[in-house]
């Protein structure tokens, strides 16, 4: 694996290798000294063109836990503000010879473009409404710990699927691991033709009881201004996951940040069924695993060991 650009590009075996690696990092996380020297002397660039809390924080912490040197750039306050093109920014950053570039960008395909312009491994930390593969991997990791296998499990993704890169990556990832995925939301927020990605589509929560996992998506309050929904109140009446709709044996997930009282009721967020805090914790170890797989694994699957000799990345990647 040379880059991580889209879940769509990964085989089930590649996904499982990353999840297995993340397990070993979870073990490292329980030690007193949580840092490993794997990426010592190598540089990771974190390039965020959109605001982000958990994704940028966890990637940056992941790089530090792996002993990499970190360059962290936000669009605001950098040369991007001054109109520099993505390609030129890439050329500038490449001068620092980074081992990896982690990029979040408001438009689809940005990470793929960067991959064509740099020698570094590129990690897509969200490109427009297209994909958010590290989120999908951390969600798989979280669920695997709870459920073991996802084979045959029913997962409902509920809410604003149209504007959600998480929905796209996750429905592909859940499907790849053998789950049956249903997307649910108002018709204007379900993209036409989404069923061809291998999911069922419904516009009502009526059948929600069948779900083993309910994955709620954030509804941005601006959506009502564009008439995607008539009002937040009406949306909540039809699609909010609350303690009445959520069964005791169902698991609840959300990529964050939550709009309490919109897509989730406050009590659902804080309910014992909620995995939201675990998702955040998984984010760190999964992102460590992603950087490790891209930069240090050399293709084998040995667990990281403290004091392990450094290895160069595979020079020519397998198809990403």
């Amino acid at each position, binding site marked *: 694996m040379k880059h991580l650009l889209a879940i*769509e590009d990964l085989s089930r075996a590649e996904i499982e290798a990353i999840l297995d690696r993340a397990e070993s990092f979870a073990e490292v996380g329980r030690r007193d000294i949580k840092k490993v020297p794997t990426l010592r002397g190598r540089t990771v660039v974190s390039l965020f063109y959109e605001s982000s809390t958990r994704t940028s924080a966890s990637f940056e912490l992941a790089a530090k836990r792996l002993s990499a040197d970190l360059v962290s750039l936000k669009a605001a306050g950098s040369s991007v503000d001054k109109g520099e*093109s*993505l*390609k030129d920014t890439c050329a500038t950053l490449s001068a620092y010879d980074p081992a990896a570039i982690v990029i979040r*960008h408001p*438009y*689809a*395909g*940005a990470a*793929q*473009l960067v991959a064509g312009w740099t020698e570094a491994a590129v990690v897509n930390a969200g*490109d*427009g*409404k*297209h*994909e958010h593969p590290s989120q999908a991997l951390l969600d798989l990791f979280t669920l695997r710990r709870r459920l073991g296998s996802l084979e045959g499990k029913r997962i409902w993704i509920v809410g604003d699927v149209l504007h959600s*890169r998480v929905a*796209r990556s996750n429905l592909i990832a859940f499907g790849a691991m053998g789950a049956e995925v249903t997307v649910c939301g108002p018709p204007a927020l379900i*993209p*036409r*033709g*989404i*069923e*061809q*990605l291998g999911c069922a589509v419904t516009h009502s929560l009526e059948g929600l009881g069948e779900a083993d996992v309910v994955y709620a998506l954030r509804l941005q309050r601006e959506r009502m201004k564009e008439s995607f929904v008539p009002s937040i109140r009406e949306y909540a009446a039809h699609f909010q996951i609350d303690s009445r709709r959520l069964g005791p044996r169902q698991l609840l997930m959300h990529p964050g940040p939550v709009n309490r009282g919109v897509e989730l009721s406050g009590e659902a967020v804080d309910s014992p069924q909620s995995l939201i805090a675990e998702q955040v914790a998984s984010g760190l170890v999964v992102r460590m695993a992603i950087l490790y797989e891209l930069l240090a694994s050399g293709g084998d699957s040995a667990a990281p060991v403290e004091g392990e000799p450094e290895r160069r990345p595979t020079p020519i990647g397998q198809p990403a």
Partner: protein
Amino acid sequence: MRSGEGAEVVLRGATVLDPVAGIEGVHDVVVRAGRVAELTAPGAAAADGVEEVEAEGLHAFPAFFDPHVHLRVPGQEHKEDVETGSRAAAAGGYCGILAMANTEPPVSTPADVEALREAAREAASVPTGFLATVTRDMEGGELTEMGALRDAGAVGFSDDGLPIRNARLLRRALQYQQLCGGTIALHEEDPELSGDGAMHEGPVSAALGLAGIPSVSESTMIARDAALAAYEGARIHVQHLSAAESVDAVRTAKAAGVRITCEASPHHLCLTDEAVRSLDPRRFKMNPPLRAEADRQALIEGLRDGTIDCVATDHAPHAAEEKEVPFEQAAMGVTGLETAFAALHSELVLPGTIELSLLVERLAGGAEPFGIERPTLAPGSEANIALCDLGAEWTVGEEGYESRSQNSWCAGLELTGRVLMTLAGGQVAYRLRSFSLGVAA
């Protein structure tokens, strides 16, 4: 077009095909003083010291006419200009092109038209006509001085690049057309339905997370404007049809007697939205967008049954930096003049989807909708000839482009069929370098 000597040439033993004129056979094509003097039996024409082109095994067609080209002048000469754009047309076998008016500033005054015609007289390789905008500066607010623009030489009118949102304003233009003539060419799109869409709305846009442009964005506006044209008895031409619903709308209007013609582009006839999965905006981002396979099939059917009158490239050059950005941010449009014949020959004729004669007819079909005589090989007509090698295989872009821009949707494709020589407006407008060297030897 630049003035020059009328061509004097004999195309020896060419396979001549002009389906509209009913000409099909192997002939010497004798061109004297820029006109087709006669078609003789192969080897029968006297050379009389003029250039002879060994054309055995090559095809001579009426040269093509493209009613939809962006020359980017004035204001965007970094993308294209009259010289480079018309040279690209000549290289594609075209004997005439119409340039769109959505320049910077738009072509909205008689002085703008006069300046462009002067530029064409100085620099154009093929006869080049200019459209003026329907609304002043393409702002959709008031009509241009359509009469004065026609007097200055505007071939017709179009706000191409933008639809005319206001139905009342379009109605006024259609009424005014009775006074001044000039076909009104329409970019049909409902901007509210298109929104910030970047590609066709369907399973591929759903998978890529790109905002979609639904097919009905185009077809509803065509239905509206066909109704307005019918009501006013006016003459309209619908640009770049992309959707099956649009073909139906035009077919219905034609059956009802509306004076409506339309065009389809080579990229819409050859590609679908599946190509956008690559997220390569240089080759696959344009407006209207590449649509689904069913839409492509409907366009082909429209080409066959005459609903679609002509092929038009919508040649839309853009500089590299305007395309080397994420898909949603990239400029809309691809170039097409240099590859239209080769692409359609490779993708539609060779697999047997359409006949060669139909392709030849539709590639020259863009003149008549604008009141321009259709190019023909009938003896006595002005020499407008595309000499093609149907067996020539070439890789697009390998030898560069005549156009100033490289955003060809065919970039890197291996195509079969190539224009070797073009006569346009009675003059030799183009010779493929390797072919002319061959002739010299």
